[in-house]
């Protein structure tokens, strides 16, 4: 086929991109395979589109002959090659922009920031341009009045000249509009978010199941886009630029636009455009989230970096970590032979390196989530509404142990479990700038939408002139900081916009100078950002944005502990059992407390007819259920033997509740 040449070239390019790292290559090859399938699916889709656009009830035979003529004509083949090129570009954009951790905008302004961010803006422009190309192909395919931009006409004085074919123009602009709105909606609905499924299925079956949904989504989305486009065109058509009288069929009137055949053609080409793109996206999601089986241990040292314990601990790229965690959850559940490798001892030496690495990583993930929840709760609980986290020092995890690694580490609210996916939206552009503390709350992503040019002007200077910037070294002050701010904020500043009743009689603490200044700045910042009301429950979603990883860690750990009851010959799991239990119980407590907050337990509205994946909205519920099940799995397996495990009295009490099935 025509696409194969392009395909081979593309794979060669990728080879360089992938940098010869075996694990990353897996992702790249999957992306390439998905793009190849999308290209292979293009001919049938195009054929269907051609038939639909050319079909007439009165002359069925003529339709077929026209279709055949078109498919063999030079322009038809050329436009098909163009379409293949568009699919390739769309596929590579997906590979470039995809993320496994959604960027959740917690306010309208943040969302606007996301939309206007250069990286997304470029994406939108590219989509816009590709929309024009697809629309041109559609115009060529449909022929008749749409085919060319200009056509010869005679003016009133008899001079032959070229006139603008507005039907062609309206189609091209529609392509641009649909492409642009598609990419905007992609940002709003997190279409670049790739979610993993709880139910494993073969790729073909999954594709077959999703295809009708995709067709339906594309058709409805095309309908809305065309409606919006028509309205816009109607108003912009009044502009003098379009009133050049070069067109003989004025389409800027309602009557001119209410041409059923035109509307039908607009809708069908918009559907075609969206369908090809959405299918590319669907294939990409299906391929990239397929289960990948990492070896638990390798007999060759040079292969050790591909083994499960090694991949789990790596931060980059995020998708590999997710795939490794998924594999861990599955192997712990289904594969006795691979579990056996996890419980095995190293030779020589006799250390349980595999188990230690796996359990340590899982526990650090869970501890990180606990600390995140506690920090959030502390800031919210003090006065009933979300305050900004003052520092990232609360978020230390065991994996990154340097306590005082300098100002940079202290000042930036870097979630230590770094969410920098290769596609993390703003990673390349603003990674170096010091972040406003506010952002840490508003998004889990380090590179938040607040770094948009408009807002950076507001927040960055504040940060720079903060008295703490570059001076405070001790983590103790930083750790105390949120308390200082939150107790004194409302009592000291009269201009506080919403005084909460709880904080009115608050006793005045020692107003140390830095805290006063910081608080002043904090309030100014609040006033500046007052228009951006927080969307309800968004901050809760943001806290749990990457919880799929925690869910797998919980499942993996609990299944392994359960299996260890009968399969662990050397007792390697027993040594970590107390820490696993206490880690889970602490997390359970934090999660319980979090769900008592307003909005945390409200269910999001289910949106079904959109290509955007809204799995991330319910991750916190899934985490809560998985956590409980995980603890129960351990307690039912071990039963009263757990009384011999050394844990604190408080945890033992809690565990007893589980043993009696009272949680």
């Amino acid at each position, binding site marked *: 086929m025509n696409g194969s040449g392009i395909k081979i070239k593309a794979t060669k390019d990728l080879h360089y991109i992938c940098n010869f790292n075996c694990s990353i290559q897996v992702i790249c090859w999957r992306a390439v395979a998905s793009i190849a399938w999308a290209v292979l699916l293009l001919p049938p889709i195009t054929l269907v589109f051609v038939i639909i656009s050319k079909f007439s009830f009165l002359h069925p035979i003529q339709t077929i002959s026209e279709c055949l003529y078109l498919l063999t004509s030079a322009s038809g083949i050329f436009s098909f090659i163009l379409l293949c090129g568009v699919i390739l570009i769309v596929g590579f954009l997906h590979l470039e922009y995809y993320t496994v951790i959604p960027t959740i905008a917690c306010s309208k302004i943040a969302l606007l920031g996301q939309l206007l961010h250069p990286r997304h803006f470029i994406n939108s422009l590219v989509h816009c341009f590709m929309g024009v190309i697809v629309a041109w192909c559609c115009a060529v395919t449909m022929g008749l009045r749409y085919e060319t931009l200009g056509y010869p006409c005679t003016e009133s004085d008899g001079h032959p000249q070229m006139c603008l074919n507005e039907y062609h123009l309206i189609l091209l602009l529609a392509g641009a509009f649909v492409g642009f709105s598609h990419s905007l909606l992609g940002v709003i609905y997190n279409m670049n978010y790739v979610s993993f*499924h*709880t*139910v*494993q*299925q*073969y790729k073909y*079956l999954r594709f077959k*199941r999703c295809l009708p949904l995709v067709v339906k989504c594309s058709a409805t989305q095309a309908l809305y886009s065309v409606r919006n486009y028509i309205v816009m065109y109607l108003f912009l058509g009044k502009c003098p630029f379009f009133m050049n009288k070069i067109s003989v069929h004025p389409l800027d009137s309602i009557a001119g636009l209410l041409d059923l055949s035109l509307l039908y053609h607009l809708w069908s080409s918009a559907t075609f455009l969206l369908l090809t793109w959405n299918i590319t996206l669907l294939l990409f999601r299906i391929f990239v989230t397929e289960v990948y089986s990492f070896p638990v241990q390798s007999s060759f040292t040079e292969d050790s970096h591909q083994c499960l314990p090694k991949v789990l601990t790596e931060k980059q790229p995020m998708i590999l970590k997710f795939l490794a965690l998924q594999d861990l959850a599955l192997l712990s*559940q*289904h*594969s*006795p032979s691979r579990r056996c490798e996890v419980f095995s001892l190293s030779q020589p030496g006799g250390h349980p390196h595999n188990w230690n690495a796996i359990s340590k990583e899982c526990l650090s993930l869970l501890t990180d989530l606990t600390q995140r929840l506690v920090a959030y709760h502390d800031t919210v609980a003090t006065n009933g509404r979300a305050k900004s986290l003052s520092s990232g020092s609360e978020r230390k995890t065991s994996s990154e142990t340097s306590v005082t690694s300098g100002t940079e580490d202290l000042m930036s609210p870097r979630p230590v479990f770094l969410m920098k996916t290769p596609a993390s939206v703003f990673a390349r552009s603003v990674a170096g700038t010091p972040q406003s503390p506010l952002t840490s709350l508003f998004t889990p992503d380090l590179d938040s939408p607040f770094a948009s040019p408009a807002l950076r002007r507001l927040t960055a200077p504040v940060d720079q002139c903060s008295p703490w910037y570059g001076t405070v070294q001790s983590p103790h002050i930083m750790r105390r900081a949120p308390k200082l701010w939150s107790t004194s904020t409302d009592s000291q500043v009269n201009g506080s916009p919403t005084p909460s009743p709880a904080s009115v009689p608050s006793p005045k603490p020692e107003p140390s100078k830095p805290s006063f200044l910081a608080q002043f700045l904090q309030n100014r910042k609040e006033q500046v950002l007052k228009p951006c009301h927080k969307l309800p429950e968004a901050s809760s979603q943001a806290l749990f944005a990457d919880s799929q990883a925690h869910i797998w860690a919980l*499942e993996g750990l609990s*299944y392994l502990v*359960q*299996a260890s*009851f*009968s399969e662990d010959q050397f007792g390697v799991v027993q040594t970590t059992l107390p820490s696993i239990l206490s880690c889970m119980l602490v997390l359970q407590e934090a999660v319980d407390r979090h769900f008592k907050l307003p909005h945390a337990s409200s*269910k999001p509205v*289910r949106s079904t007819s959109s290509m955007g994946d809204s*799995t991330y909205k*319910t*991750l916190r*519920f*899934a985490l*809560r*259920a*998985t956590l*409980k*099940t995980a603890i*129960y*799995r351990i307690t*039912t*397996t071990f*039963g*009263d033997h757990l009384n011999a495990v050394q844990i604190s009295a408080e945890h033992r009490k809690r565990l007893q509740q589980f043993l*009696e*099935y*009272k*949680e």
Partner: protein
Amino acid sequence: MCSLALFPPPLPSGQTTLCESNNELLSGASTEDRLKQESSPLSLHFPRESLKLHSRTESSSKAAFLDHSETLWMRSAAAWRDGGFTGLLNEITNSHTEVPKWLSMSSGCILALLRWVSSFHGSLFPHLTLSSEDMIAEFSQVLNWSDCVVRAFAWHPHTDKFAVALLDDSIKIYNPKSATTPTLKHRLQRSVAAVQWKPLCASALAVACQNCLLVWHVDPCSLSTRPSSGCAQVLSHPGHSPVTSIAWSPSGSLLLSASPMDSTMMVWDVAAESCVPLQRVGGGGVSFLSWSPDGSHVLASTPSALFRVWETRMWTCERWPCVKGRCQSGCWSPDGSRLLFTVQGEMVIYALTFTDAPGVPTSTSQGPQAAAVVADLSETTFSTPDGDIVVGGEIQSLVWDPRGERLAVLLKGDPQAADRPAIIAVFKTRANPIFELLPCGFVQGEAGAEPRLMQFHPNFQHGALLTVCWSNGRITHVPFYFVSAGVPHFGLSGSPLLPHPQQRPADFVNQSLFTEFLS
């Protein structure tokens, strides 16, 4: 092969089965038995008169209100919302005075066409023409479901509490350790076909209702006797009703639901309230689900002569066409390696053996080639002091105790003939050296009460405990005391038995029993 002729004869009327001890079923007179039953906290009695039944269904309450004239648009919108496309067409056709003639004519034609097509579809799958109540009655595991006071019953998989769904659409939860018995009621909780507790969880109870699936979260520490309907999650999918069968995965992560109207089987992620439909062509619906205790396979029977065995790793399935009728019931051995099932219209129990190791994704090559007959339940005449009794015939349901030592079979009998009662036959099972069923005896209740529903207690310490719901609204428990030959370890998802506070007299425990006394 075992047959009913090898069974000890049924008890004379007035005697009820009390327990199995020392390898034989002990019986007692019913008056003495009643005293004993009343004293036990878990034995319950729901007299039919005590239940407040719905006098009318919800849709018919319309008649109680004044006729309210709405515009055609409003009515059409309401019809679209309530009845979908056909509802809309119906509305347009009925209001022919207000709409143009061509519109009502054409909608009438489309409606007729749709009906013709659906009747054609219905002739392929006759069950589709049933009303939803009749359909639940047809496919439920409960004998004579529509007339049953106790419509569903479920033991909690880990503790001594259970849920009972009653004829008045309420669910009561009994726990011997707590004084409160929460009663669950919900607007959507109608015609409960099945209830099941979530494994590895103390609180979640899934309920299969007429139009949806409810998952209740009943806090075990709460003192409230009427949990609000806010405690229930509603899971529904268009076209997926009535739900007649549900099954939790033994690991507690997924919930399966099936409806005979819908050829897709839903896999629910309950926490996220999302579902993955699993569709296969053929069968016309899914009527019964049973998840193997090790979590590796799921039996899904369809209303036609076909059932499927799904493998749960990648969700692929094997087709098993039956010769005669649909698969009526089925149960799994504790290790998930053996499936026993019965077919409607046949009087035998079949066995399928799955030898593959759990976790190997492709099971088709290693699966069994044909089902083997393990027991013959054709009609057998026993002569008792009260006259001849014919026992045997078609099978309503099968349950296997969690240790895999006792198999209870509910025989339908013939409600018209007095000498052909519905009865529970209990088999002993043994797996070594070859799998076979050995007769144990019949479980009978009070005179005039026929068994409707039965379930084994999931972790009874001293053998097996069969809970039976009778047609007179009584729930009794029949213990089978035996020492299990080898305490099975339930694969991945099973749990070692927890020590329970001793509730039963311990004198049965130490007696040695022989489960293989007859061949």
